[in-house]
């Protein structure tokens, strides 16, 4: 509970302090949950299944305020509470929006923590919506000209998805023995195959919009491009993971009978999305757009991996969620800093920044390499596992999905080339302490996961095992 409340209180404090708060204070505030998370890990461990750590009567006796913790949750909490400080530290410009943006980011931290911990269907839904609200404000009030249209599209998309999910959850809720929304009760509902497909479709819709998978992605690029950096980072780095987390935590256990039906579709769409995003990214001129489509491509691969239902796919997927969060936040941070100092983020107008700041170059390169999934950077183990999982599902699919490793190299290095190399067009790009620290955290994450991925995989192992058990109990068969 603390981990949800503290950021929200921090948000209020920040809003209350107004102009008097500064980066130091916000960063410190955003770091507190990390300490709390540490105590969670030590207190509850990651090998005991998804156990309840907080419980309170809420809407009714059986619709409770229940929080759970396990490795999967822990992993995503780690991502959230490690990355939000990075965003707060370095991703928010010191302009008139700073206070508002910081407060909203902190608020979102709380909401996201709630999403990842909720053990009650309705609570999950509510936190899911709650997490939407700050980002919706960020895009609405700080993304320039077309803000209204962009935000509306984004919001409608996600809202329709959420409603579909709510409908499915309601359906399950009404079929529980005692009108309970608890995860266990929802899971215990016996559905026929056709029911399961409908329920699954509803739940899936919310997640595929958020992930986003191929035809549901039109909100993404514009939202990323026009939001302030912190917004893009929150969205791509953490919020997308809500969708993937939802797949693992809510879709698979709740509608296992429908998996067989959706599996080819989702994997097909994902692989198509992998190529689609990569293809588009190749020619983008705006760095943010490029990253947006790159993200589309990378996340689709995670979805495909998860849907193969292999251990590699599931655990690789979780690892890659974390990794993608780190990388994409890092890249957006890079773009933000470039834009802040040069005033542009169009590749054609940039060049030669490598000369002006070596450290920046190194950080950028590390993050780029992580994204390209070069061995010993964080992208590699996850991508390897995911591609292997897809291969196990269907070798031809993995050939197609594997093309991403080529395309990704093309567009990422193209971005590096045109922004960093060549003759210098802009003079200085200097980093401040907070940006050094932020990049430091990101770089450590890149290398640490690159060298010892097993450390992170071990965290989620038993959770994934539990999910696999749930699914296989219901389906009777599983690879």
């Amino acid at each position: 509970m603390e981990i949800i409340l503290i950021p929200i209180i921090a948000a209020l404090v920040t809003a209350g302090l107004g102009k008097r708060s500064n980066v130091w204070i916000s960063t410190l505030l955003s770091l507190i949950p990390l300490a709390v998370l540490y105590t969670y890990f030590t207190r509850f461990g990651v090998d005991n299944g998804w156990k309840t750590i907080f419980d309170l009567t809420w809407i009714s006796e059986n619709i409770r305020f229940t929080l759970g913790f396990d490795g999967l949750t822990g992993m995503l909490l780690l991502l959230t509470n490690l990355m939000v400080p990075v965003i707060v530290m370095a991703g928010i410009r010191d302009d008139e929006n700073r206070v508002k943006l910081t407060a909203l980011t902190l608020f979102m931290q709380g909401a996201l923590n709630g999403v990842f911990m909720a053990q009650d269907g309705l609570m999950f839904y509510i936190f899911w919506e709650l997490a939407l609200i700050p980002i919706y404000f960020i895009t609405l009030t700080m993304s320039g000209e077309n803000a209204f249209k962009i935000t509306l599209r984004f919001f409608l998309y996600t809202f329709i998805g959420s409603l579909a999910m709510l409908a499915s959850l309601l359906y399950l809720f009404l079929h529980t023995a005692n009108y309970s929304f608890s995860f266990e009760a929802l899971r215990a509902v016996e559905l026929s195959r056709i029911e399961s497909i409908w329920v699954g479709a509803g739940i899936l819709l919310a997640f595929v919009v958020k992930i986003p998978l191929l035809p549901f992605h039109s909100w993404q690029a514009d939202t990323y491009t026009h939001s302030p950096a912190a917004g893009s980072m929150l969205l791509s780095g953490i919020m997308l993971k809500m969708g993937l987390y939802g797949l693992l935590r809510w879709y698979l256990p709740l509608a296992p009978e429908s998996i067989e039906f959706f599996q080819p579709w989702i994997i097909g769409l994902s692989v198509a999305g992998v190529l689609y995003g990569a293809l588009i990214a190749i020619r983008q001129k705006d760095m943010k757009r490029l990253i947006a489509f790159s993200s589309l491509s990378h996340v689709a691969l995670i979805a495909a991996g998860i849907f193969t239902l292999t251990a590699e796919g599931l655990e690789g997927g979780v690892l890659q969620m974390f990794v993608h969060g780190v990388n994409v936040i890092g890249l957006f941070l890079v773009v933000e800093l470039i834009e802040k100092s040069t005033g542009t983020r169009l590749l054609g107008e940039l060049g030669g920044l490598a000369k002006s700041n070596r450290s920046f170059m190194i950080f950028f390169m590390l993050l780029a390499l992580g994204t390209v999934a070069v061995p010993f950077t964080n992208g590699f183990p996850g991508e390897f596992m995911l591609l292997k999982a897809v291969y196990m599902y269907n070798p031809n699919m993995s050939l197609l999905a594997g093309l991403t490793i080529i395309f990704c190299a093309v567009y990422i290095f193209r971005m590096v080339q045109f922004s960093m190399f060549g003759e210098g067009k802009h003079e200085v790009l200097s980093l401040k302490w907070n940006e050094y620290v932020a990049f430091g955290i990101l770089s450590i994450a890149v290398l640490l996961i690159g060298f010892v991925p097993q450390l992170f995989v071990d965290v989620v192992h038993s959770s994934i095992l539990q999910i696999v058990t749930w699914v296989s109990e219901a389906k009777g068969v599983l690879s």
Partner: protein
Amino acid sequence: MIALFITFFAAVVLLFLGLNKKESSFSNLAVVALMASSICSFCNAKGLCNFAILESWVPANMMLFGYSEHMFASLLAFVAAVIVFAFRKNDNLGTDQLGLIMFSLCGAFMMISYQHIVMLFLGIEVLSIPLYVLAGSKKDSLASNEASLKYFLMGAFSTGIFLLGTAFIYGGTGSLELEMMGIKPSFMHAMEGMPIATLINAGLILMSVGLLFKVAAAPFHFWAPDVYEGSPNRTTVFMATIVKITAFVAFNKLLSTFGGIHNTWSGWLCVLGMITIVWGNLAGLVQNGVKRTLAFSSIAHAGYLVMFLLILDESKTWILWYYGFAYALASVLVFLIAHQSATDKNPVGFDMFNGLSKRSPWVAFALVVGVLSMAGIPISAGFDAKFYLFSFAWQSSPWLVGLGLLGSAISIGYYFKFIKHAFLVKVDGDETAVEYNDKGLMMLIAALLLLAGAMPWVLLKWVF
């Protein structure tokens, strides 16, 4: 019953007491009276006090105040009190409008507690006739006149329809008492030449039309946007909240009576609900006026509430109560802010909210809470209300629930406009001075909505 008495006498007193004084000087009295009604009803429901002597004055087969009727009376009186307080700065000469509001409320009390169709009819009329007058109370405003005349003509017309239905039902069931109506049909089969089934079906449809007109359900909603727009704000809120809730309570009572033959009416009612949801939400999208938008929003909410009618479970009345509570408070809040924000230059359009977040951030916050509650976004009371409603309506009308969800999504389109103008459009201007009382009221309502949203179980346990 107690609410009815207090309100009635207070209305009479106000009518005579303040004949030549400004209305604002007596609005506090009205608020006190309404709050007293509300509290007394609540206490009565909870058994904290007993006004048996009053009950005995009216035969139980005409009007009956049970637990839920008391609760609804309490809610309505409370909402009315809030409305009167919120719009208290009315410099009308004479307290006749306050009196009319309270008379109208008396009609509402009759409608929620009727046991006999006569009382329903009288309730409707007592509710409506003052409203016809109130709608036109801005005498020199053509819009107000038009609203008034439209409301009156259509209202009278629908009364005619309603009455024809009543007559048919009377013919079909042989009684006008609710209890008897429910059981009579079989008994009446004996009589020659009476197409009983047809009479009951037709009668029910026609009576429903009368009530659907009051709640503004499609295709009987056409009056609502025009009348909402033309009427003075206070009247509009009154119509949007109290009339709607009351009509639904009454409607529910009527339909419950015919619950045995629900297969004859649930079909078309469901279809009407669907049309209403779609129509209200879609048509709301292109509205430029704040009040018109809210009118369509209220139409859409009527559509959602049709789900409630189809649940047909006496024990689920609390859903309507909670929904009414959330909806009414949110409406009052948004209307109040719109009322406060309207300028001479721009009395109707969304531009009135421009830059509200800068001009007075707390008001903007309250606006967001109100609008999000209407839209049904967690953690506002509106969400919980919709949640209860949709989840319990699923069994009886799954398609309507599906459409309700879709409608909620569409509705974001226009609820969004409020936030857009309040937060996105920047204007250069000074802070708007909002009186502390008003600001306090807004924050209070917003807080209520949020608290009720975050902990609905606490509220419901307390109330039901």
